């Protein structure tokens, strides 16, 4: 019974940052901007939340600063792709590199090695928000002007423009949403860990992206994918050292599961390809 409770709790702890980041990616990719920079945006948020919270002693200020940093990087992404027509993948890579370097730099420069304890965030509020978010987004794209325009721009920016919609403006709003959600995801990761280590996000931005693709760029299946990833990750922790069906698989095999599932989805073995038609179009 205790195991089950641990499993559920672990799933939520591991799954919620993924949900936030994946839905952040949803806004970006649905507006047509390929986003491999979720990782970098989360990472810059983690270090900012960490340092600012400790400096001010106020988690609220820390989280606000983390979100701001993430938004700033997201705006940079918008600027590069929309104003200067840079390839979204190249600029995404650059943002990841800059975030990785900056986080390492700030951590090494400013973290006090004797720092003990990090104030816990109101985790329950985060969890409820993260679990409800995909439903809210689902309602949003169906029943609001902003949602309709988001899908239209991501599907065919030129035709949307002809109808009086401004793709750059829509993408600006979408990338702000991406920044906010990646910022929240980063805050949650720091809070869960309670301490800071280099490369704190450890590839979770890519797992979130994988969940988004696995979910066919739809909010509710994406939620399911995030929860599944969290579940398997936690299961892997709890099963470590024990045998399943007579064999003890190394943990790395478990960690591969999200990536393998995503490859299978990309190969079209899980139904039709649902890539937004305008993904990557200027």
């Amino acid at each position, binding site marked *: 019974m205790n195991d089950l409770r641990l499993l559920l709790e672990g799933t939520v702890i591991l799954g919620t940052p993924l949900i936030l980041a994946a839905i952040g990616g949803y806004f970006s990719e649905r507006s047509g901007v390929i986003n*491999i920079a979720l990782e970098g945006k989360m990472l810059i948020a983690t270090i900012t939340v960490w340092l600012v919270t400790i400096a001010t002693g106020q988690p609220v200020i820390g989280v606000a600063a983390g979100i701001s940093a993430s938004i700033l990087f997201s705006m940079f992404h918008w600027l*590069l792709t929309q104003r200067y027509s840079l390839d979204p993948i190249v600029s995404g890579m650059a943002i990841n590199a800059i975030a990785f370097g900056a986080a390492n*730099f700030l951590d090494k420069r400013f973290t006090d090695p004797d720092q003990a304890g990090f104030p816990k965030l109101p985790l329950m509020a985060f969890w409820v928000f993260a679990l409800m978010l995909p439903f809210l987004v689902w309602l949003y794209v169906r029943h609001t002007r902003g949602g309709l325009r988001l899908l239209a721009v991501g599907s065919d920016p030129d035709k949307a423009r002809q109808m009086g919609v401004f793709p750059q403006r829509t993408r600006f709003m979408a990338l702000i949403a991406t920044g906010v959600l990646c910022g929240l995801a980063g805050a949650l990761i720091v809070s869960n860990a309670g301490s800071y280590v280099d490369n704190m996000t450890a590839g979770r931005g890519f797992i979130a992206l994988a969940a988004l693709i696995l979910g066919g760029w739809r909010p509710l299946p994406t939620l399911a994918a995030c929860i599944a990833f969290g579940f398997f990750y936690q299961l892997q922790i709890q099963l470590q050292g024990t045998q399943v069906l007579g064999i003890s698989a190394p*943990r790395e095999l478990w960690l591969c599961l999200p990536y393998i599932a995503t490859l299978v989805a990309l190969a079209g073995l899980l139904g039709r390809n649902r890539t937004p038609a305008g993904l990557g179009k200027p």
Partner: protein
Amino acid sequence: MKIWALLAIAVGLVYGALVVAGAAPADTAQSLIQGSLGSAKALEGTMKHFTPLLIAGVAVFFALRAGLFNIGVEGQFTVGALVCAVVALRMPGWLGLIAGILAAAVAGALWAYPAGWIKAMRGGHEVISTIMLNNIAGQLSTAAVAGPFKDPNQQGTTTASIDPALMLPSIWQDPRISAALLVAVLFVIGIWRWLGRTVPGYELQAAGANPRAATLAGIDAPKVTIRAMAISGAIGGIAGALQVVAYEGRFFAGFSSGYGFDALGVALLAGSNPLILFPSAALFAILAKGSTTIQVMNGVPKGISFVILGLLIVIFAAIRYRKVPVKES
């Protein structure tokens, strides 16, 4: 875009970061150069970065000409290195060296193949699939050296070491320069001539630039895409193998220090001219080696080199990869 304004902002950012870190910028720049080029030993260290960056850069470059963003060189490099170490350790003498490199080429090609197939047959973006393959390569190779291929005589997750006498020989002593450099140079020149002078090279670039037009020109674009991805993967695998047989002598967990990602920067900087891979790889190698020195000497965290790298990618992408201006009809 105002390239110079961007450059100025980048320089300003880096300068500011140095000041924040409490280092004198001029001193830092000096130790960066000193640490990467200033002595035979420094140069040796830089070459150790330069060679794999150059070959991995060729792999990325080749794929780019076929219209593919092979972010997966990181994974192909890792798989190639692992397979090479495992094969070389199980074969006697020189045979192991050769068989190891060949096996690495095959392994790299196989590791890239799914991405090419998914792109050509299913329209799935190769960037996403190669990111997934990279992560799988990282996890599985760690599992491999933690489990079946671990050297029982050592604590860490590593294979045993190859007999130094059976490693790739040097072509120069003091600074020691491995024959791997020769291989790298041959790769660059070979790819340059092949793309520019042969019909298959022309067809590969046509398929990359406009697959539909290429198809109507009698080119089997999906086949070319899959093949280009596999060849790129093979080159990436060879880059990993050479790192084993020329420098490290073994494979260990976390083998690639991000060569695959740096290689993307190397190739982007080179644009459409493969010969620019030389200076471009040199720049990245100097940054990689020199940043270790400035961390030790000037107390500037190594992270700054990634910031510089990211800014460089943005600046050069801005110069080379701007979209053709839309014209009114």
